[in-house]
């Protein structure tokens, strides 16, 4: 469903990503683990056609991300790290706006049904007429995910979906994502720097400073590194603990 070959991206003289090979299958839950600044978001943005790769190529659902960008954008949903909803519009108005942008088939009536369904699924039915700015962080993120899956994408990218949320909101959100996967069978590509979020993934790729350092099922990775957790896998592969790499890679103010 997602194939990347030798994918690389430079920003000026900075080599943000280099030699990335990926092969993510249908309905797979794929985790992309690494500290802040490792190149996770850059990878997602290339796969979502927002950035052009400097080197290599990638295909989503068989479509080339550079030459067939519209077809790629049709088959994916992307929930960005930062919020994308219009804070001055209500939750429902935002979803209606998205339904028009994604040209939901069957006219507005079917869009309305889909929006009702998602609002129920994400526990937002009672807040449908509230402006987004009045929602809690967890609800905003839930609304953003509802926006991302509105058009029933075959691949859903979740870029640090729980960043900045409290543990309770985080748990609620994970329940939503589990339900979503169970109901839709879509491929989910998750980036995170929380190891515990990568544990339930079918497969995990570990990224550090723009390079893939390990890839496999969580069990395989742990066995190969002789480690008890993915945290230790990162330590074994890079010689640094993940949390420390995180702090080093994130100058103050870059991450929320």
């Amino acid at each position, binding site marked *: 469903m997602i194939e990347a070959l030798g994918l690389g991206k430079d*920003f000026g003289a*900075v080599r*943000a990503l280099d030699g990335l090979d990926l092969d993510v299958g249908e309905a797979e839950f794929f985790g992309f683990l690494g500290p802040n600044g490792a*190149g996770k*978001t*850059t990878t997602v*943005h290339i796969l*979502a*056609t*927002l*950035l*052009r790769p400097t080197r290599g190529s990638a295909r989503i659902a068989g479509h080339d991300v550079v030459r067939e960008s*519209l*077809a790629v*954008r*049709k088959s*994916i949903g*992307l929930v*960005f790290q*930062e*919020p*994308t*909803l*219009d*804070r*001055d*519009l209500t939750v429902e*108005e935002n979803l*209606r*706006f*998205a*339904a*028009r*942008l*994604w*040209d939901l088939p069957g006219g507005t009536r079917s869009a309305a049904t889909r929006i009702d369904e998602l609002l129920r699924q994400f526990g937002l039915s009672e807040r449908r007429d509230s402006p987004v700015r009045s929602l809690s962080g967890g609800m905003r993120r839930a609304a953003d995910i509802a*926006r991302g899956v509105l058009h029933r994408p075959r691949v859903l990218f979740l870029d640090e979906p729980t960043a900045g949320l409290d543990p309770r909101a985080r748990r609620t959100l994970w329940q939503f994502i589990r339900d979503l996967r169970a109901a839709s069978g879509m491929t989910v590509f998750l980036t995170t720097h929380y190891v515990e979020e990568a544990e339930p993934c079918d497969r995990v790729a570990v990224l550090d400073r723009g390079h893939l350092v390990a890839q496999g099922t969580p069990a395989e990775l742990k066995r190969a590194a002789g480690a008890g957790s993915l945290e230790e896998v990162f330590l074994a592969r890079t010689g640094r603990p993940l949390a420390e790499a995180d702090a080093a890679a994130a*100058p103050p*103010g*870059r991450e929320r």
Partner: protein
Amino acid sequence: MARAVWGIVAREFVRFLRQRGRLVSSLARPFVWFVFAGAGFRAMFAGPPGLDYPRYMAPGLLGMVVLFGAFLAALSTVTDRDAGVLRMLLVAPVPRGAIALGKVLGATLLGTVQALAVALILLPAARLSVTPGGAVLALAAVVLTSLAAGAVGLVLAATIRSIENFAGVMNFAIFPMLFLCGAFYPVRNLAAPLRALAYLNPLAYGVDLLKHALLAPWSAAGYGGELAVGFDFAALAVFAGLGLAAATPLLAREDGVTRAAFPGERR
């Protein structure tokens, strides 16, 4: 794709209606100028019989409403970038050109609606009688000027990176456009270098058309439109087309999409 363009236009309109302050100030602004600039310059203005200064200024004030209405609406794209909404637009399966078109048509709608609302009060207040032909020409002028101003505004919005540059935009784009459009004095009276600048200003062609439409009785005396109507239309169409073509690739610039593309920049 048509639905996406319509969605963008509808969102612009809903946002405009919801921002009461913007609504009130955009409608009140031309009347403040009408009353105060009109009162001040009336005594200095030696126009032909039947044309006092407030009346001479009326077409220019409609141009000003279009400038603030359409140009500022297009500039709101900067806010969209800051708030993240632009990312949602860019990841939607819509060609970049359709996003630019939606933004410009939204600006056109806002500029036109505001100019019409102001005209309903301003023209009677200035005691300007409008012929049916003049009204049609004025409407066409308002729509096309809004389109051109929206397109040029979008280019500017796609170029500047944050709202903090906004004061610069006011000083170096809006005020020069306003004073070099023929709203307050005829363009032909300007010194040659300024006149050349005026002809690079889309608003000048719009105000010229509005003078054709509203000041026709005084055109023989040199206070009506200065350029041919067809030329004004053509110039506005060129600004609209060039603006759309230039804004389309600028909207999706990489450094506007991802923070990774400009590391070290404070957000």
